[in-house]
């Protein structure tokens, strides 16, 4: 029996605010044993971070613990003085934060920062601490610890920094490690590597971990137990298998239904979004706090709040109707009537051989003669989009997908290539494009906060394109705007609101309404959902699918999120370092044979299903700089299936697999097929049958 490391009982955390005292976390109990990774999931505003801070008594000035008991091993943390607490922090309890850039001192060498912890808390001598630091850096699998120890934060990539943070946190061999969204800011491939590392290290050292995240896939991959937090209360708690397979709370079920699966897409199912919003702590409903958004809610739910009840061994739920949920079976998503298979329609957009190089200026470059340095952000990408189809573009950050989209929109002037929209050649710059062409192509941006003018009512944002680009007369504009708001499921009176009065998801709906206002034939969506909560993501994805069906608009959907792209796209293009590596219909691209890069992306993808055992194919290092692109195949520096010298010297050829699927690799298709076997998704289907 592993020993109990953290025992927090009936915690209630209160903040003093302008509106009086607010209980942001209510009556939460947590137990974490040694060697256990406890996942705490919840959407933004659910109180995850507050809870974590309360556990280590690190609340901000205006917050305090109203009720509860916290034991770390045998120590009652609430009885400790400030000074004693300081000896607990950093030694017995350590923390890894979300943003590694903010957590590491930029002007102190990496090695020194690890050594400092060892000196302060382990009372090691300078030399011992130095060795300890190197030892820790080796443990977190940093290839060249001696060299890295002498580097500064800006010289390391985000993934490396996060490893350093793990090294710092593990240096004192703590009993409890709290990780607050440690991989959220990282790319999938880097995330997978870090998650592997965390899993291995914790098991080795028998550390208890509280892992906070919003990503169910990540929880399924690393955690052994999970608690689902909603508006400051635990809704369900249990082992991974219990919670993901025998879900006993409608909220958990809702969250799982919001995540698109890699093996099905919009043609098969529509995502099941949770209606409504998380209630604010000053406006909690009287009964079960989830009742207003729950489709199973009955009268009793709205009146009385039930405490957590143990249903199965170690499986707790706060839902009174859990018996029925059990019988329900899995209703993860609505099955939808199969969409009529549209013939491959006419070409809407054809972008041929687009290139965009950014000159590197500044520094001493002006003194270097004949040495033009350039960042090759987009280097020869060709893409076709057909009517009422979605072309998905996936790639890690910095691969050039956004620059490509901006070139097509004309916000960035391409250096070379041709952009053809419905057979007409477009000028590179948006300023030189005629009105009619502007109307046909619109864009939804990534950051909903920056995409609306904070000084204008949101209705104005939707009315402007109508005024400029459509033939609607002045009187009808008001009506049209109201229609558009209804189409994106926003109440009519929102028209008069200013952007700061809307939530992130609502702002993005306005942005979608604005893009649709002039009835475009092509819409470019640049990561439109990535900054939002899963339940909001699901409803926006559904909205995009519905709008596409009713209006016949084509999408160019850009994202780093494989499952979102898979869900929305009919065609998928995989981009790495400014070039395409694989392109094909959505069904084909994620089925072997696929490009080794696609394979790595797929195997890194966190899937919220503990039954799927993904093959662990991990990429080494980080994406090379677009300023000096590797020779031959650009992927050879990280490719797990590299053949040899040929990959370094020659550019790989395009190979066709079937009519609609092409990839660019030196490895013959037949060999890839043999190497990759059944592939990930096939296995997944097998598991379901």
């Amino acid at each position, binding site marked *: 029996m592993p020993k109990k490391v953290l025992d927090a009982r009936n915690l209630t955390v209160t903040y003093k605010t302008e509106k009086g005292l607010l209980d942001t976390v209510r009556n939460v109990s947590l137990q974490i044993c040694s060697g256990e990774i406890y996942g705490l999931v919840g959407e933004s505003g659910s109180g995850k971070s507050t809870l974590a801070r309360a556990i280590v008594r690190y609340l901000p000035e205006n917050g305090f613990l109203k009720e509860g008991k916290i034991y770390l091993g045998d120590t009652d943390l609430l009885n400790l003085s400030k000074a004693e607490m300081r000896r607990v922090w950093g030694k017995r309890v350590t923390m890894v934060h979300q943003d590694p850039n903010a957590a590491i001192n930029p002007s102190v060498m990496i090695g020194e920062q690890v050594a400092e912890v060892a000196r302060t808390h382990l009372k090691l001598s300078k030399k011992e601490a130095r060795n300890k630091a190197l030892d820790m850096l080796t443990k977190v699998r940093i290839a060249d610890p001696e060299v890295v120890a002498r580097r500064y934060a800006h010289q390391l990539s985000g993934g490396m920094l996060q490893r350093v943070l793990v090294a710092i946190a593990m240096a004192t061999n703590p009993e409890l490690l709290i990780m607050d969204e440690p991989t959220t800011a990282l790319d999938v491939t880097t995330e997978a590597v870090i998650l592997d590392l965390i899993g291995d290290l914790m098991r080795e050292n028998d550390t208890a971990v509280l892992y906070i995240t919003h990503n169910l896939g990540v929880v399924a991959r690393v955690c052994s137990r999970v608690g689902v937090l909603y508006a400051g209360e635990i809704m369900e708690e249990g082992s991974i298998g219990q919670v993901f397979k025998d879900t006993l709370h409608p909220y958990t079920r809702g969250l799982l239904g919001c995540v698109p699966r890699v093996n099905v897409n919009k043609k098969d199912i529509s995502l099941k979004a949770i209606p409504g919003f998380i209630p604010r702590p000053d406006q909690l409903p009287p009964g079960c706090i989830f009742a207003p958004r729950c489709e199973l809610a009955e009268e009793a739910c709205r009146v009385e709040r039930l405490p957590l009840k143990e249903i199965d061994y170690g499986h707790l739920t706060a839902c009174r109707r859990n018996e029925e949920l059990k019988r329900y079976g899995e209703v993860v998503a609505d099955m939808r009537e199969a969409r009529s298979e549209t013939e491959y329609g006419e070409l809407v957009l054809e972008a041929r051989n687009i290139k965009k190089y950014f000159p590197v200026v500044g520094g001493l470059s002006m003194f270097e003669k004949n040495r033009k340095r350039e960042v090759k952000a987009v280097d020869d990408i060709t893409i076709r989009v057909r009517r009422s189809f979605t072309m998905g573009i996936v790639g890690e950050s910095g691969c050039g997908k956004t620059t490509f989209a901006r070139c097509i*929109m*004309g*916000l960035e002037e391409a250096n070379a290539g041709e952009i053809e929209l419905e057979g007409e050649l477009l000028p590179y710059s*948006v*300023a030189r*494009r005629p*009105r009619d062409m*502007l109307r046909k*192509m*619109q*864009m939804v*941006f*990534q*950051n909903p906060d*920056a*995409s*609306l*003018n*904070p*000084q*204008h*009512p949101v*209705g*104005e*944002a939707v*009315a*402007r*394109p109508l*005024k*400029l*680009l459509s033939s609607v007369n002045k009187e009808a*504009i*008001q009506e049209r*705007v109201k229609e558009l708001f209804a189409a994106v499921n926003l109440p009519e009176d929102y*028209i*008069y*609101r*200013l952007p700061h*009065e809307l939530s992130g998801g609502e702002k993005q709906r306005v*942005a979608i309404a*604005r893009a649709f206002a*002039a009835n475009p034939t092509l819409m470019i969506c640049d990561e439109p959902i990535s900054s939002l909560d899963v339940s909001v993501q699901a409803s926006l994805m559904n909205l995009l699918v519905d709008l596409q069906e009713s209006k016949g608009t084509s999408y160019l959907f850009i994202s780093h999120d494989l499952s979102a792209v898979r869900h929305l796209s009919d065609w998928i293009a995989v981009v790495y370092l400014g070039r395409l590596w694989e392109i094909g219909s959505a069904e084909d691209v994620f089925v072997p044979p696929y490009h080794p890069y696609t394979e790595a992306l797929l195997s890194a993808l966190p899937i919220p299903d503990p039954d799927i055992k993904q093959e662990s194919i991990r990429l080494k290092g980080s994406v090379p700089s677009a300023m000096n692109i590797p020779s031959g195949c650009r992927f050879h520096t990280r490719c797990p299936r590299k053949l040899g010298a040929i990959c370094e010297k020659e550019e790989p050829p395009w190979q066709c697999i079937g009519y609609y699927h092409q990839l660019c690799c030196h490895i013959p298709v037949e060999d890839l097929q043999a190497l990759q076997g059944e592939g990930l998704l096939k296995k997944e289907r097998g598991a379901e049958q």
Partner: protein
Amino acid sequence: MSETSHTFKPKQKRSRYISAIKRLQRYPTTLIGFTIVFLFLIIALFGPLLAPYAYTAQNLPNKLQPPSEEHIFGTDQFGRDVYSRILVGSRDVLSVAGSGTALAVFFGLLLGLFSGYRGGLFDELIMRAMDVILSIPPLLLAMVILFSLGPSRVNVIIIVGFLYIPMVARVVRSVVLDLKTRQFIEAARLRGENSFYILYKEILPNVLPHLAVEASMRFSYSIFLVASLGFLGLGVQPPSPDWGLMVGEGRTWFHQSRWVLFFPAGAIALLVVGVGFMSDGLRRILLPGGVSDA
């Protein structure tokens, strides 16, 4: 552009202002600042009506008197009532410094907007020209120009405006540079808005809060500059009751009577502090997210 070009008027503007005023209450200095500035404005408007004596009324036998019931701030070297002169003099300070600031804000805004929005060589030329102005000590430059032009009220206004254009232009330009890359500007370009609309309707409203804060700061500096020029005898000429001028004249009689010097100097200090507090408060109300938050 006419007001009707807005299809939708924000309804909630009033509640926004109310919440801004509520926020204000938490900062007493802001309230003090606004009160001081407001009082001085009243004095400037009604100064001659409030003053017990005419500011030019001489009474030589009564010169350099300490404060008394008849003359609460005492009298100066010609026996004129200092209190009355300060009341009336507030007009000079506020109008000269205010007009100078307005001039600087107007041209600074124009230059900053176009410079930031156009970018390129145009921006480079304007900004380097601004650097040239900034590289010369302002008081020195003002003195040189006033020596050649001759001291007068209008000239002081022009000088103050000219000297503070670069500061305003820089602030406006930096805000525009930030706004220019925001996606709502790109969305406007994508729907084919012309540059005038983008500058006037999309960018300008977001610059105004920053401009208001900058203008109030410039105003307090202008008061200083106007007072300094008055002190040096290069500003408004006697017998005007300009505060700076009064300090300058009072300097000669400092050993016989401190009052001639103390009260006008105190008035300058009080006004500058008041404007400073006000500008601080404006920043808190208009830019709650910090300076970078446009």
